[in-house]
Structure formats: structure tokens, C-alpha cells
């Protein structure tokens, strides 16, 4: 419980400091909005030409895109502290974190909370509502719960990826750019249901990194393409992905050698 209170403190500090530069905050938020708006335009123009892809219509794809975007922006807002982690290691800041009697992950997360991601999230929410109105989904409580599970599971999976990114920094001392394939790539290509990329990609995204568990399978349940009772629970199963990520992090902390610089 103490941890949560501490995080609340961090959060308030971050809000206050962001509000010191209101114009900059606003502009970055708009920038976030614009970049994902371009992705939306890409989908929109494709569906001016095509009516469906792999059995998914325009509004169904939008529903899928918006949920993925919400998952990603939630994870990014709260867990992108790991993004600058290579800096924390190379300037010796992590030494300071280690000597404090608090959880290291919590402190790293508190060091950077990206409120500007609200621009992206808002857009996702708008698209989500639009998708709901257009897609003729008959909503019931089980489908609503599925969306909630997707948001929880999705945030967990993306956070896990950010955690891996940071854990690798223990060994390389710098951020590895290729990890962006797994994070930004998933956001970029998660705009369409994963099945359209073919069977192999779907298998990879089911068993190696559980993207499909937080996107394709539950979406199929919501759109009534598959009504197996266990599909809504797959996003919760995806949370297990955090376990290997945490192990890697622990392993990294164990092997941490200070760079000595300050």
C-alpha cells in the first residue's frame, strides 16, 4: 500500500511539472494525436477502396485499432519510464535508486510519466465509440467485460515489453533500437486484426509474444466470429507474459555493475 501512495506522489509531481510548460504539453499532446491520426487516415483511405479484409469490415477494423491503441497508450503513459532507462544507468542514477529502501521498478516508473499520451488515448476512445456505433455489435455484459480484460491484458503485455527493453540495458548500457519492432511495431501493425498478416505471424503472436491474445482472439469474440466461452479470458492469460519479463529484470538487477560515472 505504501508503494501505491508513493506512486501517487510521483504522479502528482509529474503532473505539476508538466503543467509548468503548458504550451509544450499541449503541442506534444497534439503531436501524439496527429501521428496516430495519420495511421487512421491510412485505414480510412484503404477502406474507401476495399470493403473488407479477411472478413473484417471497416468499422470492425476501427474497433480493433482503437482498442490496441488504447492498450498501447495506457502502457506508454505509465510505463515509458523504462524508455529513458539507458540514461538512468549511464549517468549513475540507478545507484541512487538501489540505495533507497523502495522497489526499483516503482522508482524508475515514477521518474517519468508521459501524460501527453492522453492525445493518443483520446483519439483511440473517439474511434472506439465510432466503431461501436457503426459495427452493429449487440453489446452484452460479457462483451463489455471482454473489452475491460483486453485493456488490462494489453497494458500488461506492452508494459512487459518496455520492461524487457530496460532489462537489456543492464547488459548493453544503451537502449537497443530493434526492440522498437516489438513495441512500436505492434502498435503500428496492430491496427489490423493480426490474422490478416497470415498464419505464421498469427502463430508467432500467439505463442512467442502474446499480441494475438490481447487483440485478435477477444475481438473475434466481441464480433461474434467465434463464441468459445474461454476467448474473453485469453487477455488475462497474456498477463503471464509479465513473469518472464520480471525474471529478466531481476536477472539484470542482479548483474548490475555501476558505470561509475555520475
Amino acid at each position, binding site marked *: 500500500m505504501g508503494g501505491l501512495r508513493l506512486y501517487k506522489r510521483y504522479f502528482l509531481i509529474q503532473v505539476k511539472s508538466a503543467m509548468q510548460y503548458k504550451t509544450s504539453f499541449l503541442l506534444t499532446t497534439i503531436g501524439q494525436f*496527429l501521428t496516430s491520426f*495519420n495511421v487512421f*487516415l491510412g485505414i480510412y483511405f484503404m477502406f474507401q477502396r476495399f470493403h473488407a479484409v479477411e472478413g473484417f469490415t471497416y468499422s470492425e477494423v476501427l474497433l480493433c485499432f482503437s482498442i490496441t491503441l488504447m492498450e498501447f497508450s495506457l502502457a506508454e503513459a505509465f510505463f515509458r519510464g523504462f524508455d529513458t532507462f539507458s540514461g538512468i544507468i549511464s549517468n549513475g542514477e540507478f545507484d541512487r535508486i538501489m540505495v533507497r529502501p523502495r522497489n526499483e521498478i516503482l522508482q524508475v516508473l515514477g521518474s517519468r510519466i508521459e501524460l501527453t499520451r492522453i492525445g493518443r488515448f483520446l483519439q483511440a476512445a473517439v474511434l472506439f465509440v465510432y466503431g461501436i456505433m457503426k459495427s452493429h455489435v449487440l453489446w452484452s455484459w460479457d462483451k463489455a467485460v471482454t473489452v475491460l480484460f483486453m485493456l488490462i491484458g494489453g497494458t500488461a503485455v506492452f508494459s512487459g515489453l518496455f520492461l524487457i527493453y530496460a532489462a537489456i540495458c543492464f547488459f548493453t548500457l544503451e537502449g537497443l*533500437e530493434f526492440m522498437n519492432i516489438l513495441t512500436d511495431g505492434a502498435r*503500428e501493425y496492430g491496427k489490423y486484426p493480426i490474422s*490478416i498478416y497470415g498464419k505464421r505471424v498469427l502463430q508467432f503472436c500467439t505463442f512467442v509474444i502474446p499480441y494475438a491474445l490481447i487483440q485478435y482472439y477477444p475481438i473475434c469474440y466481441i464480433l461474434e466470429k467465434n463464441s468459445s466461452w474461454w476467448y474473453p479470458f485469453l487477455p488475462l492469460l497474456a498477463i503471464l507474459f509479465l513473469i518472464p519479463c520480471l525474471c529478466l529484470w531481476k536477472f539484470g538487477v542482479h548483474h548490475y555493475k555501476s558505470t561509475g560515472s555520475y
Partner: protein
Amino acid sequence: MKKYFSFFRLRFSMGLQYRAAALAGIATQAFWGGLEILMFRAFYRADPLAFPMSLESTSAYIWLQQAFLALFMGWVMENEIFASIQSGNIVYELCRPIGLYRMLFVRSLAYRLSRAVLRCFPILLMAAFLPSPYGIALPPSPAAGMLFLLGMVLGLFVTVAFTMLIYSLTFFTISPAGIRMVALSALEILSGSILPIPFFPKGLQGVLEILPFAAMQNVPLRIYSGDISGNEAIRALSLQAFWLVVLVGTGVILMSRASKKVTLQGG
């Protein structure tokens, strides 16, 4: 001329130093290209008649785009230049007996080329070995190949000239983030880097094709695969040359006004 060449050489060899980053870039771009093509394949299967290009030319377009990403993407701009304009350190450049516009132009060219040179060959090689509709083949004729090269040079110059406008405008505002963001977002969607221009709705396409944004990657990448050929290609290349003149002209005027009128903040 010689001094600008040495600026070019300096920035170019500096850019070549970042080999680990280039390796990561290659992996990313190969991955991106593959997924992009799988996506287009799905749409092609859904309705081949609605597909505006052939699948082969779409694949070639995407692989070339990924291989030469650094040449045409708007965001390949140097934070160092932005920072020196904002902090006022740019005055040191003004002290030198060189044209500021020309120097920054050459420097941007070198920066983009050095990044592209490190990245393009492995991606092109890989794409060349992929099976037919998903890989990249040689251009349909040697003439098309020549036009492609000409289009690449013009496209690169137009892209740099456009980013030069953004640098110039930075002189006039203290926080350039806004201009930069809007300009780069517009470039991203209108130049065909998210979706090749033939995929846009018909009416919009006509408008997009004459904008300066279409004079960047759109022309060479479509000439290569034969999507634009003959007279149409000549017309597209002339339009590129036209926009290059206009953008450079505007940039030079803006930059000279900036260096005359603007009060630097001190350093």
C-alpha cells in the same frame, strides 16, 4: 564550392560512425517492409480488382521505401541544428564566410545519404532474393532505371529543401515544436509514406500528385516498378524540378531574412 564539399564530407563520415544503430535500423526496416507487404497481400486477396497497382510494383515500392527511408522521411532532421538555432549558437556559423542556406543544405544531404548508404544494401539484397510478387526485381528497362535515379536525386533534394523551410521558420519562433509537428505530419501522409498515392481515392489523388509532397519519394519509387512510365514519367520529373526551384527559392529568401532581422537570444 570546395568548402561546401568539405562540409559534406565531414557530415557524411560522421554519419557513417553509427554502425550499431544502422544494424538495428536494418532489422527494423526489414521487419516493417515484410509486415507492410503481408498487409497489402491481404487486401489484394480480398479484392484484386480494386487494387490500383500490381502487387509486384507495390512490393517494389515498399522495399525501396524501407531501404531508402533515411532519404525521404521528414523526421530525419538534426536536433543539433534546431538546438543551435534556439540557443543562438548559430551565430558562429554566421561568422564564417559561407552561405548559411547552402551549408545547412549540404549538411542535411550528407546526413541523409550517410544514413541511407549504411542501411540500403542489406535490405535491397534481401528483397531481391524474395519470391516474385513479394520481392523486388530490376526495373523494366535501362531507361526506366536512369529515370529512377534522376527521380531519386530530385526527390532527395526536394525533401531536403522542404526540411530547410522548417529550419528557417525556427528562426522566427522560440518554440518550433508546433510548426515542425504539423509540417512533418502533413509530409508523412501526403508524400505517400503511409500509403502509396495510387491507393488514395481518385479525386484526392489528382490533387496530391501536383503538391510538392508527391515530388519526394512518390515519383522515383513508382518509376522504378513501371507504375509511372513514358511521358507521364517525364512530366512527373519536371514537376519535381519545378518544386525544387520553388522550395529552394522560398528557403533562401526566408533564411536571408532570418539572418538579417532576427535577434538572437544570446548563448
